[in-house]
């Protein structure tokens, strides 16, 4: 299989922060807002460089979302920043009416998504955000996998006209996407071709999918690994072409099974090419306090869980 050397280790939120700073220099219509989590969101450099285009909303997320919608009238491109939980469930109605239904060009940027937020526990570990956001008409949903991809995605969404939910995280994770790889919204990336089983992964699970594919290769199983960074709109073609070849699929994500990427994939497949599928995702439970690594293991989101799922799904062909 194709090898992806580790280029370093960094948190995806830093990819957002660095991308935002670059955007600030490139596009003077870009403005940023944060609800008292500037450091956590890595928005400090933008704030420092462009104080007139940075807005501290305080711990008042609903107002921040409404203001962002209003700021688009007159041409600004607002990037809001807070934890994924407070970017979605706390302000769902504000996003629904003032942004999605009103078709406003707001970029909702959400850090600390999923279990890997770690020790703060389940109150902060949102695992339902992708589902909530993808259900909204007009909303584009993106979950990049490493620092480089998050930075590229941050730059790309400024050029996309319409509401976007950009989801990233807190822990330091391997960087393996080449810095110069173009980021195309709605276009999946074929990371490694294979013939026996398709693995479709998003976010932090993409690196684990590559690790799993390597493990499977040692067992004589050829896994195809696809990175779906844009959950909506979904790249249907890359998934359908793959399952026509492999006849089975595993989806992997740091999210509930309900509402996640896996559900989008199964919805596509049942309408087109019914295909055996296994889900590597959280199964209808809240998280808890722990280190990111402990949590990923306990809730079944490790490379070994992807390996096991691949072996299981291959028996169902």
């Amino acid at each position, binding site marked *: 299989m194709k090898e992806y050397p580790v280029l370093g280790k960094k948190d995806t939120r830093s990819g957002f922060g660095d991308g935002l700073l670059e955007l600030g220099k490139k596009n003077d219509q870009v*403005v940023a807002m944060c609800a008292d989590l500037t450091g956590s969101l890595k928005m400090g450099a933008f704030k420092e460089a462009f104080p*007139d*285009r940075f*807005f501290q*909303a*305080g711990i*008042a997320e*609903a*107002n*921040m*979302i*409404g*203001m*962002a*919608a*209003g*700021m*688009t*009238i*007159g*041409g*600004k491109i*607002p990037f809001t920043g807070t934890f994924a939980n407070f970017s979605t469930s706390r302000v769902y*109605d*504000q996003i*629904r*009416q*003032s942004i999605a*239904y*009103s*078709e*406003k060009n707001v970029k909702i940027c959400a850090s600390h998504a999923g279990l890997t937020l770690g020790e703060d526990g389940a109150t902060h570990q949102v695992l339902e955000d992708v589902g909530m956001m993808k259900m909204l008409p007009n909303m584009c949903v993106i979950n990049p996998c490493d620092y480089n991809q998050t930075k590229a995605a941050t730059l790309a969404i400024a050029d996309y006209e319409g509401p976007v939910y950009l989801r990233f995280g807190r822990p330091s994770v391997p960087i393996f996407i080449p810095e110069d790889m173009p980021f195309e919204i709605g276009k999946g990336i074929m990371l490694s071709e294979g013939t026996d089983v398709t693995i479709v992964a998003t976010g932090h699970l993409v690196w684990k999918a590559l690790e799993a594919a390597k493990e499977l290769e040692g067992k004589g199983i050829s896994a195809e690994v696809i990175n779906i960074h844009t959950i909506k709109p979904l790249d249907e073609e890359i998934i359908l072409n793959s399952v026509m070849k492999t006849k089975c699929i595993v989806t992997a994500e740091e999210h509930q099974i309900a509402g996640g990427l896996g559900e989008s994939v199964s919805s596509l497949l049942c309408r087109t090419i019914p295909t055996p599928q296994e889900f590597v995702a959280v199964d209808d439970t809240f998280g808890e306090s722990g280190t990111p690594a402990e949590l990923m293991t306990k809730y079944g989101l490790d490379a070994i869980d992807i390996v096991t799922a691949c072996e299981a799904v291959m028996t169902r062909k």
Partner: protein
Amino acid sequence: MADIAQLKSVSSQVRRDIVRMVHANSSGHPGGSLGCVEYFVALYFEILNHNSADFDMDGFDEDIFFLSNGHISPVWYSVLAHSGYFEKAELATFRKLNSRLQGHPATEEGLEGIRIASGSLGQGLSVGIGTAITKKLNGEDSLIYTLHGDGELQEGQIWEAAMYAAANKVDNLIATVDYNGRQIDGDVDDVLSLGDLEGKWKAFGWEVITEDNGNDIESVINVLNKAKTLTGKGKPVMILLRTEMGQGVDYMMGTHKWHGSAPNDEQLANALGQLEETLGDY
């Protein structure tokens, strides 16, 4: 100032439009709509610097209005039509399938004059603040106007926005509360009292004007003009506008019962008998 007699004539026709629109669907919100007629007529015919002939979402160099209590859409639609944003005949499509005149205002079908959806309460002040900030960033001295129901002030987001606007000196914003004292379930004081509303806004750092004659067109024009003189001085401006829910139709006044109820045929005839047809029914 515009001819007051002419504005009163527009107001009478707008009231006829409102009761006819809600009657035609047996649904809609006539009470608050009737109570806010003078505010809308004053705003669109006298106060706003706006371009109704060539609507542009960004509204560069225009004053911009947001209706936060979207349920009083009938009065807004009627005044937008009379101001030239779209044909008056389109008022007949209100709340009908495939209409641009949704029950609550929406942008999806491109209705001229509408810049954001509203209906779920409490969101319009935040939106107004956002656009006010954009006006400043763009170097414009245009003003932002918002309207809110008094019951709507029970929403927490309003107070998040109130705090933000004052703390950040958003002083190109004139918000108005339709202070009619009534909401769906009854009197605001009985449902969830707002207490000392003027004191609350002042404590939040706003410039506050209370106007007791919110259904007198001259008084409304005057208070809006006074509010304009208070902009640009480091504080957002709030007008507490005392109005009468159901104003102009006797049986709809003095009660909360016509907040969201439509008149039947007989009640419509009664209402129209009280409202002069001045500019021709749509």
